[in-house]
């Protein structure tokens, strides 16, 4: 007789569905009638598995091109045209990075610099540092 089980974690969430070679008596192993991988991630309560509402994923690392596209064309042009050596260095360093951590000090300090120089408007820093989207993590 098959031994199909759903294994629960400490929060009673199904973390494994398995077909074992023998019977196991364990409060965290729920015997199943069939192998059902759709139970993974569901919460077991009172003999029933139900969906769990997941917290949204917060993305703080995005691809380099995604940060570029957060700037308006006018802002991008102003950055490229800037003769300020710090702006040039910042642009060069960030351009080399395939991934940008939005919480990195260089990003924050760089946007502060752009604000001080009037290249971006006050308040743009917060807009440019909003959480990333899944699209901004795809190459």
């Amino acid at each position, binding site marked *: 007789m098959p031994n199909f089980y759903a294994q629960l974690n400490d929060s009673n969430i199904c973390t494994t569905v398995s077909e074992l*070679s023998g019977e196991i008596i364990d409060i965290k192993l729920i015997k199943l009638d069939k192998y059902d991988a759709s139970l993974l991630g569901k919460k077991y309560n009172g003999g029933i598995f139900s969906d769990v509402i997941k917290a949204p994923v*917060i993305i703080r690392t995005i691809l380099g091109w995604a940060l570029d596209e957060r700037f308006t064309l006018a802002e991008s042009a102003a950055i490229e045209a800037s003769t300020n050596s710090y702006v040039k260095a910042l642009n060069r360093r960030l351009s080399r990075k395939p*991934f940008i951590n939005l919480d990195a000090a260089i990003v924050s300090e760089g946007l502060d610099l752009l604000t001080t120089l009037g290249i971006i408007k006050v308040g743009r820093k917060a807009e440019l540092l909003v959480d990333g989207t899944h699209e901004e993590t795809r190459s």
Partner: protein
Amino acid sequence: MAINIAYGTKSIKSIQRGVTLSSSTATATVTITSVDTAKSFVSFLGIGHEEVGSTADTLGQKFATITLTNATTLTITRKATSLGTYISWEVIEYA
């Protein structure tokens, strides 16, 4: 499930399979029916992810290791993340 399959001079005593959802923690443990670890091995059958991108933060979750820790426990280790990763495994024990 107990299977006896002739394979050269050895035969398979048992095969156990499963899929584990690993999320938010770096290590997941799986309980299996007791095997003789000296006569068993674990196979990694595949890995799948919830929606993820290709950023540096997510690369680590695309890799996982599976270890037969003891006679009744598999340990799956990967980089901790809030995104889920599905790992399919198999434990084969020879007679």
